[in-house]
């Protein structure tokens, strides 16, 4: 049995290791240069966390064909088509596919969000791990989700001065999530760990950035709790509003996607026979859930009966996953920050005022070019979905931009 695993974050690593340990012939593909995905991103300057190292060693202990820096372009009649500048066309012929394509950040437009030194929260994290110098810089971390604390902790560790952590979710909705942390103590310990590193900066709940200001780069943000506004001078704003599942490859393979998530059954099987999906692409649940799902998909793909105990273990996370989404649900005020002149589509420079009267996503795209640029709506699509309720851009061939010669010699 030959299994292709697409994505080498926690879900993909668990799937690849489990499948290989149980006798499958495994291909592991990721567009990044190293295993780990977004959450376990590491490099020469930033070693991977211990849990990541465990899984990477398990991968290395098996004979797994790995392809890093390889982009999957989509599917044609011969199967998955993948390409990298180093390797040219990569043949991904296989019997079964496990998708572990992860998630990306949700950006919401507010005045000033396109100023230099305004980053996504995850984007800032990646830059820090790549060695961006921040010592002595004043940082505001804002937006929503558990990632904010982790990012703020990394800034603090690198010697930056975290002047504010603004979580839009209110303390009441977060407190409803507290029982989950008691049920999953490892998560609680992780949170406390961030907290001690961040001391004395405490997160403010029910608070968000309504404007970033500065002529050339961001100099100051205006924070608000909906009742009053106050300025926070800063050198960097890291602002992300949670995560959006990457479902494009699943869509290209014909898998059903509902409410922005790939639909899967208890075995992580999608609506397409032989195609499984694990981790954040099936709903935002974090690394523990992704690891379990990776194991389940590998065992299920190989028809191994002891998958049942893993499925039961996964069920214990069910309320954690659904309560996580509820606790960090976006308040309507953060969807109303954009002004008419605020850019929504950065690739094509399309502003909120131009978009707000468009009837639907397709009209917006064709009449204003929103989502037509190099990111193909990966950034503005989810934002428009939140702001206007439009459906997401349908993925087009190729799923990521490639040089034309990539399509010249694929046979």
């Amino acid at each position, binding site marked *: 049995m030959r299994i292709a695993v697409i994505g080498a974050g926690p879900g993909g690593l668990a799937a690849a290791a489990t499948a290989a340990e149980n006798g499958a012939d495994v291909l592991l593909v990721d567009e990044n240069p190293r295993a780990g995905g977004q959450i376990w991103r590491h490099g020469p300057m930033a070693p991977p966390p211990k849990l990541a190292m465990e899984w990477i060693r398990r991968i290395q202990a098996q004979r797994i064909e790995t392809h890093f820096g390889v982009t999957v372009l989509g599917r044609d009649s011969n199967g998955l088509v993948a390409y990298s500048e180093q390797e040219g066309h990569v043949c991904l012929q296989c019997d079964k596919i496990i998708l572990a394509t992860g998630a990306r950040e949700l950006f919401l437009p507010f005045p000033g969000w396109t100023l230099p030194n305004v980053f996504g929260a995850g984007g800032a994290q990646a830059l820090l791990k790549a060695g961006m110098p921040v010592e002595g810089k004043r940082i505001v971390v804002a937006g929503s989700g558990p990632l904010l604390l982790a990012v703020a902790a990394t800034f603090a560790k690198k010697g930056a001065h975290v002047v504010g952590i603004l979580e839009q979710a209110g303390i009441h909705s977060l407190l409803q999530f507290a029982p989950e942390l008691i049920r999953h103590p490892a998560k609680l310990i992780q949170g406390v760990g961030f907290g001690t590193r961040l001391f004395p900066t405490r997160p403010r709940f029910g608070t968000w950035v309504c404007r970033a200001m500065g002529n050339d780069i961001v100099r100051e943000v205006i924070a608000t709790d909906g009742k009053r506004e106050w300025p926070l001078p800063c050198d960097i704003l890291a602002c992300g509003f949670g995560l959006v599942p990457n479902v494009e490859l699943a869509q290209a393979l014909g898998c059903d996607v509902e409410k922005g998530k790939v639909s899967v059954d208890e075995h992580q099987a999608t609506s397409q026979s032989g195609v499984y999906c694990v981790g954040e692409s099936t709903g935002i649940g974090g690394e523990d859930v992704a690891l379990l799902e990776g194991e389940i998909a590998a065992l299920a793909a190989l028809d191994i009966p002891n998958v049942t105990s893993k499925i039961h273990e996964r069920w214990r996370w069910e309320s954690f996953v659904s309560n996580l989404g509820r606790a960090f649900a976006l308040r309507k005020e953060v969807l109303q920050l954009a002004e008419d002149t605020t850019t929504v589509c950065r690739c094509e420079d399309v502003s909120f005022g131009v978009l707000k009267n468009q009837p639907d996503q397709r009209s917006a795209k064709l009449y204003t070019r929103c989502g037509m640029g190099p990111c193909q709506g990966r950034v503005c699509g989810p934002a428009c979905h939140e702001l206007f309720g439009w459906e997401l851009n349908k993925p*087009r061939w190729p799923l990521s931009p490639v040089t034309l010669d990539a399509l010249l010699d694929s046979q």
Partner: protein
Amino acid sequence: MASYDCDVLIIGAGIVGAACARALHQAGLRVIVLDAAQPGTGTTAACMGHIVTMDDSKSQMQLTAYSRAAWERLAAELSPDCEDLAAGTLWVAEDDEEMDAVEKKFRYYSEWNVPCEILDGEGLRRFEPNLRAGLRGALRVPGDRVVYATNCTRWMLQGIDVRPVTPVAALDEHGARDISGNVYRAKSVVLACGSDSAKLIPELPIEPRKGHLCITDRYPGFCHHQIVELGYLKSAHQFTSESVAFNIQPRPNGQLLLGSSREFTGWDAGINNDLLQKMIARAHMYMPALANLLLLRVWTGFRPATRDKLPLIGAWPGRQGLYIAAGHEGLGITTSLGTADLLAAEILGTTPPFSPTPFRASRILDPDYGHHE
């Protein structure tokens, strides 16, 4: 359920329907336009938007030369988002045989008073350094243009009663009915739904002819003209087989549109990777530097094709007051303006700008339709 009255009901808010609506509205008629989707988002949105003079037949030359001149007059009025660019066309000859064809083309275009010039290999390279060395020459038609057809469609429909997302369920003797049961009564009904026209009148011999287009990232100055290989005409002329031809267009923002392919696959909009590769390989042969450019997106669209490569324009026999404006294959953006003037003349009873006979819709009932080439 409501009932609406107008002089002309136009079914189809693509560029052909929009151009007809504009011409009739300007003549003072009350026009209503219906479409199942938003204006200009069907085949119109899948097109390149090349305003081109083409000489596959005398009739095609008549219609495209007239329409091209009409676009030139319109250029100053169009809104900026129509992205009008007087790029001109280069018909590129690979060898001596094609160069002979260039000379013949030059004489024919000159007879029709279409300004053009012959370039030798060196002259061609001076205009377009990214074309490969060794090409024999080209015919340059400086008056041809490039537009963004979707926004041209919206521009043409300004001030007109357009009802998007109103699919028509059926035609009847007084007009049409939409799927919600609303009734539209009109003296004249114009069917302008491209390949979809056959869904309302099954006898219409219009078939979807699929094409692929690629768009690149922004490379301002990579090429300046719409560049087409001379073999394009042959590719467009054949009716049955799959074919590709080199065709590249510079967009005003620096992006490049790359075509072209033709195939009959029914309504399957999927990417045909083999054909796409042939198409890109063909382009690469003419412009080797394309290899390093970033490709953003590929899509397909359906040209409404007729057997004799001419659109169907005018009264439909058998039903009083029903007119057809469809079947424009790959030339709908260009010929929308000529189509509108012919159709408006027929509906208004005025003198047409040129003979409508070769385009009359009733010709498809002739026993020898589609047999003489």
